């Protein structure tokens, strides 16, 4: 701050005050120096990073920038109705063979003339991957988190072990697990489910045991007093307190997992991610539009539903961001 606090004539004030003012100004100057230094370092790192990224990229930023709109132009479908046709699996009048307009391929017949369009089916696959892995991850993470919480862990070495295991699962790259299991279970959603489940265990497990470490221990003391064993203490002393928070975190994880299962799909896990990657790389405007629209709507809906449920479960505390 630059409020001028030094008096005009030093004789007006006591020397102690002058010393305080001097010290304060020195402190402020040092702070300012460190702030500027920090910003300068950040800026230098930024410039260096931009140059590094630009140089090692296949196309360079300023060379490609004028062509950005060329690239966008293929995105605009020649016939906007094709977007709806692609979404609903209806035949297109533009279809001349080839893959750009074969919207009717991949329909899943229900009965009679009813069918699930290909893209909707793929979206269901992706959502199901996210749902089942969140569910299984949740079921496994709950008991693990009780073993990892400082206040309820039955044994200390086990607690450390479980904690490390969770850290490991959280940091381990999901695509490696997906890749390993796609060699075992053949390429498809099963590998994605295992990968996302394992990652979910690590990610929500950490949040869970932090919740448990913050609970009110009185119900637990009550359970201990009446001679409850560990399982009963957890079930009746702790679980009722933490279940709303657990569910809220699991819902938040579901939002993240819908995105994750799309991404893993794009690298070979099946589902809508793969279709999107294919469609973008081949430059199919209508198909891409349809897929982006579908994915966008799904993500918004999942986020909104989960946010509403979380608000009901734990109120505004649900909106403290977690990672």
């Amino acid at each position, binding site marked *: 701050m630059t409020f001028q606090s030094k008096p005009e004539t030093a004789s007006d004030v006591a020397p102690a005050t002058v010393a305080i003012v001097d010290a304060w100004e020195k402190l402020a100057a040092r702070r300012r120096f460190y702030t500027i230094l920090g910003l300068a370092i950040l800026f230098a790192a930024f410039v260096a990073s931009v140059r590094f990224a630009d140089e090692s990229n296949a196309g360079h930023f300023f060379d490609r920038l004028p062509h950005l709109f060329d690239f966008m132009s293929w995105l605009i479908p020649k016939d906007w109705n094709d977007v709806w046709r692609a979404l609903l699996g209806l035949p297109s009048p533009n279809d001349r063979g080839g893959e750009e307009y074969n919207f009717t391929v991949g329909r899943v017949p229900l009965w009679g003339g009813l069918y699930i369009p290909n893209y909707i089916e793929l979206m269901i696959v992706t959502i199901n991957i996210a749902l089942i892995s969140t569910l299984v991850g949740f079921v496994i993470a709950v008991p693990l988190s009780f073993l990892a919480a400082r206040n309820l862990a039955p044994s200390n070495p086990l607690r450390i072990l479980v904690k490390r295991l969770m850290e490991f699962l959280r940091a381990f790259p999901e695509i490696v697990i997906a890749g390993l299991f796609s060699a075992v279970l*053949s390429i498809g959603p099963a590998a994605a489910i295992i990968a996302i489940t394992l990652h979910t265990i690590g990610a929500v497990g950490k949040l869970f045991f932090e919740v448990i470490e913050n609970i009110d221990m009185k119900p637990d003391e009550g359970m201990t007093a009446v001679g409850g064993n560990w399982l009963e203490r957890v079930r009746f002393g702790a679980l009722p307190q933490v279940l709303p928070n657990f569910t809220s975190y699991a819902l938040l994880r579901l939002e993240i997992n819908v995105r994750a299962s799309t991404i893993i799909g794009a690298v070979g896990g099946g589902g809508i991610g793969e279709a999107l990657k294919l469609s973008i790389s081949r430059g199919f405007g209508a198909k891409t539009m349809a897929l982006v629209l579908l994915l966008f709507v799904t993500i918004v809906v999942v986020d909104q539903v989960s946010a509403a449920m979380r608000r009901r479960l734990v109120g505004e505390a649900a909106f403290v961001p977690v990672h």
Partner: protein
Amino acid sequence: MTALDANTFRDLETRHAHLLHRSFKQRFGGLMVLGGILLYCIYSAWFFDLPKLVAEGHWERLGIYLRQWISYDVQPVFRIGSDGKIATRYPRFNPLGDDPKPDWVRANSDGSVLVEVSGSKSVRIAPTQVDVTAYGMTTPVRLVGENAKVDGALPGWMSAYEDTISVDLGFSGDVSISGDQVKVRKRFLGWPNFIFDTHSPFFDKPFGEVLQLIVSGERLDKSQSNLSLAFDNFWNNSAWQHGDIWVKLFQTIVMAFLGTLLGAVFAFPTAFLAARNMTSSSLVNQVVKRFFDFLRSVDMLIWALFLTRAFGPGPLAGSGAIFLTEWGTLGKLYAEGLENVDNKPREGIQSTGASTVLTHRYGVMPQVMPVIVGQTLYQWESNVRGATIIGAVGAGGIGLKLWEAMRTNANWANVCYMVLLILVVVFLFDMASSALRSRLIGDRSR
């Protein structure tokens, strides 16, 4: 504690009816949720055909691949000529070099060859008979014309096919015997040629010798010093590609850094537009907030795919994808932080007649700075993880390399190396970010 008699109980019932007569939802709600979850699990097991997938999975591959993460093998082929001579051939590009003379393959004076697979397991190859010694017994395999035969019952670790006998020696290797050739696979723990590949002049030299060569040895290559030669050989190791992998890893980190920083720089001013208490036009608030939602919901993957097409594969595309997603995420978080500020300091500054910029600087910034710094660092940390994955769709960084190494199913040791590097980087960034957080905002909790 005394037992309740009927009167006290009725009395309690009238006074606390809501505790004893619970609604249908309270009594069966939990059970129904559990039932629903169970039904959903059954449905998805059917939907993904999980029982069949699990039953038909090649689970033995899991063991084999995991084994390859930490070990390598050499598979010499012993071809038995018609004249009874045994010729030894090593596959090309094997980790022992082009002309290995390993001490575990010994030629005996009678023309047979002894291969030691491990301490107690060995194979002796003679022109008409192969003796496999393992698990405390020696089983002779007779070579008759095109076929290999065992007299009597086969031990459990041997299996016979049409004309070959295959021997499973566990982790240490396996042997496949046919009429005119024997393949012996010997497995070693560790990573082969991790520092120098077989073409390097330093290959297979003990550590002390390499050190001595680097410090005081004669120049192996006239044009450069031994130190630079050693570094060059290491960096361009053809089997491990250290240089390439490290550069790609660095790209991943740069992508996360650049994306998060740019996102923060763009999110900061726009968050003021989105916050109700900073900009009083609710139209502007809503438009900017929906814009943030749009950026976030389109998702990093879609941005990455688009930008990879626009700029070509590489870190530029990845940085751009992270930037756009992060702009939305951080914008939303910052706006929430701004909406939660205490208004009193602002009013105080305003009452001195300060301009809007000064009011924000001294009335708002000190309050929101910890939130902003904390959130940005958290996002940076999680983007280092995210950048690995979007790299696999071509957005640059180590992800693609990882995916390519996995796809061939032959290079699991390289995958393990990259995974270890990623784990180290993620842990370092976790630590760095929480250290920075506690320094900058003076508190370890969020």
